[in-house]
Every structure is written in structure tokens, then in C-alpha cells.
């Protein structure tokens, strides 16, 4: 039917340019290429189904991103991987252990992408609770303002700022630990070489 075709064409024309941004956001959130593809496909499908509720002239990227976050949260809930943002340091360490374990099961494609995109940063992000991770990704990857992030996540602007502060601090600490580990491994390798 032509009616469906026209509607789909209009939807694609508006939303297709957002594909790369949505995929990147999904990938950095899920740390898995296949999961990210599934999430973005589901996002497009969900957005298409409710396209009539989108108000023309409003922020389409914010609308699509909100849907993506909902899709991701639903997906993680099903898998029991959605963590509350109040996770303390011990919980973060536990999450890090889980992330390390899951890294073993990642497919070669994912591992290749991880090597390309700063694996330490990706691993550090995966250790963040959801409540801290989403504001950070929206700010750093999508370059969204505090107000846009607040609108998408449904939280006050002040909360966005405080969560960004906490998130960055944790990521920086995690990255620093990674650097220390690399240095330690290098020293061990160097010592081992000296033994021969």
C-alpha cells in the first residue's frame, strides 16, 4: 500500500542520518557489536511504530536516543545485567570481574572492534553503573547539553552534573589502574627476559 510506503519513506528520511550515532551509543553501552546492532534495529522498529507520537519540530535525536536507552534497559533487564546507579566501589569491582569474565566469551569481531576503540576506556565504562554511564555517554559521545541529557533521562540538570562528575572520576581511576597493570606486566616481562 502506498500509504505505508510514504510513511516509511518519511521516517527513513528523518531518522537515517542518526544511525551512526545510535549505533555508537549502543556499542559503547553494550560493548558488543551484535548486541548493539540488535538494540538499534529494535530502536528503529519501536520508533517507527510510535512515529505518529513524535512531534515534528522537536528534538528527533533526543527522542530516538530515549527510545534506544529504553530498548537497552529492557534488554539488560531480561539478561539481569541492569545495575542501579547507586553501586558503591565494591559493587563496581564485582562488575569489573563480571566484565572480565564476559570478555573471554566475546566473539573475534567484538574483540577486534575493542582493540580499535580503546579497550581500556571501553572496559572502564562497562564497570560504571547505568545511572552514571548514560549521562557520561550522552555528554562525551553525543555532545549533548546538560538540559538535553536531563530531558532524555528524566532527571534534574543538577543530578546530571553530579553524576557526570562521579562517572568521570570512576573512569579516570579505572584507567589509571589499567596503566598501573600494564606497567606491572611490562616490568614482570622485563625481569623474565633478564633471567634468560
Amino acid at each position, binding site marked *: 500500500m502506498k500509504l*505505508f510506503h510514504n510513511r516509511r519513506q518519511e521516517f*527513513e528520511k528523518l531518522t537515517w542520518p542518526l*544511525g*551512526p550515532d545510535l549505533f555508537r551509543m549502543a556499542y559503547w553501552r553494550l560493548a558488543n*557489536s551484535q548486541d548493539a546492532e540488535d538494540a538499534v534495529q529494535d530502536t528503529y522498529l519501536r520508533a517507527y511504530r510510535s512515529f505518529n507520537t513524535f512531534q515534528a519540530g522537536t528534538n528527533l535525536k533526543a527522542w530516538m536516543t530515549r527510545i534506544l536507552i529504553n530498548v537497552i534497559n529492557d534488554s539488560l533487564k531480561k539478561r539481569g545485567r541492569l545495575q542501579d546507579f547507586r553501586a558503591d566501589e565494591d559493587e563496581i569491582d564485582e562488575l569489573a570481574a563480571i566484565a572480565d569474565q564476559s570478555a573471554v566469551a566475546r566473539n573475534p569481531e567484538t574483540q577486534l572492534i575493542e582493540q580499535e576503540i580503546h579497550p581500556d*576506556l571501553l572496559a572502564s565504562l562497562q564497570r560504571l553503573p547505568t545511572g552514571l554511564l548514560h549521562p557520561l555517554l550522552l555528554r562525551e559521545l553525543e555532545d549533548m547539553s546538560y538540559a538535553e541529557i536531563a530531558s532524555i533521562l528524566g532527571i534534574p540538570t543538577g543530578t546530571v552534573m553530579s553524576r*557526570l562528575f562521579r562517572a*568521570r572520576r570512576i573512569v579516570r581511576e579505572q584507567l589509571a589502574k589499567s596503566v598501573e597493570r600494564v606497567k606491572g606486566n611490562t616490568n614482570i616481562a622485563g625481569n623474565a627476559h633478564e633471567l634468560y
Partner: protein
Amino acid sequence: MNCIEVRPLLDLLGDGALDTKDTALILDHLKSCSDCQAEWNDIEQLHASFQQARSKPELPAGFMDKVSARLKEEDRNVQKRFLQRAVPTVPVLAIAATLLLVGCFVWPAVEKQNGQVSTTLASADRLVEDLGAAGTLDMISDRNELTKKVGYDIKQVRLPEWRMENSGIYKSQSHVSIARFDFIKKTQSGDQHLSCYQAPAGVIRTTAANAINLAGKQVQFGTHGKFQFALWSQNGRDYLFVTELPKEQLQEIVRGA
């Protein structure tokens, strides 16, 4: 500004969320404070890492085609669900429309083509029963007017020795007009009565099966209460004679009619 004031603002500085005055004050502080400068360097390094991350990973080749295909499939499913919901109602509507069409146009047209209009057939028993009922006859004595009202030529029924007492249109549920003529015959033993219904052939029906051939006419005789009746078709008309007289006398009347 001192370090305690500056540290929480470094993030905002990195986000470009500070005004010119605060920005200048913090930058001044950084020049003279190595700890805060180190903190600021870490923040900038993190920003730089994210800047690099913005370009990766790239969208897999053909991914949007996959999305497009899925949307097309969604459209097909929506159409399918729409049709599935619509289909059960289609036969009902179609049947109703067909019945309406047949009832209003086709059936009457077919009947008319056959020279018969029998949407509601008249039962001989009902006609006999209504014979004595009040208000079942619309009296019209003038033959021309009666012919005009019933819509077909009234066939003259010749009954020697009988005098027509009343004539008119039987008020039936059928839209086909049935003419009725009441006759009377005066005898020494008293008045005899005979009523004759006349309608287009095929309108008046009876379940009586004992048809008798009388003077070339196939006549069905029947009894309803105290009345005897005879029904036959002749020259495109149905004739129903009703009387309280015995069947034998009715046979004689019909034979001579």
C-alpha cells in the same frame, strides 16, 4: 580561588559550562597549582579519549538496509493484521448485502418476469378464516375502481342464480391485492352464501391435496371449520370459492362457473 573551590569546577570547565569570569579565575589558579593542573590534565586526557571514541565504531556495512528490510516487514505484518481483522467481517457484510440485494431487487424482478408476485403467498385457510372476520374487506362496489385498485383485470365470474352482494379488496399482509366477491342465493330453505377470492395465479396456496378435475379445471377441495373451499387456477388467475354448502353443491357451482 583555592583548590577546594576549583576541583569541582574542573568538570564544568571541560564541558564549557562556565562563564568567562570563572574560566579565567580557574585558569589562573591552574598556572600556580601543580596538583590541580595534574587533575585538569587527567580530565583533558579523558576528553581526548572520548573525542577519539566518537568516530568509532563505524556503522557496519549494509546495516541500514537491514533496518529498512525490517521496517518493510513491519508494514507487511501491519497490513496482514489489518486484513485478518477485516476478513471475518467481510463475509457477514457480503452476505447481508447480497440478501438485501436479492430481497429488494432481484427476487421481485424474477417474480415479476414470471408474471407472478408472490413475496407473501396467501393461505386458503387464512382467507377462509378471515371471511367472517370484521374489517378484512375494503368494500369497493364499482368494478372499474376495483380493477384499478387491485392492479389487474378482474375476470368476470358467471354464477347463474347467484347475485353479487359485496365486492372489494381483501386486506392481507401480502402486497398483492386479492379481490373478493360475496354472492347470495335466496332459496326457500333460506339464504345461501358463497364468496369468491380472485388473485393472480400462484398467489393463493393450499395444502389440500385432493385435486379433482372438473370441466377441465384441476380443483383442490378443502375444509376449514364449517366452510368448504375450492381452489383452482384458470386464465392466469387463482379462484378460491368458499361456502358453508356441502362439498357436492360446491362441486356443482365450480363446474358451472
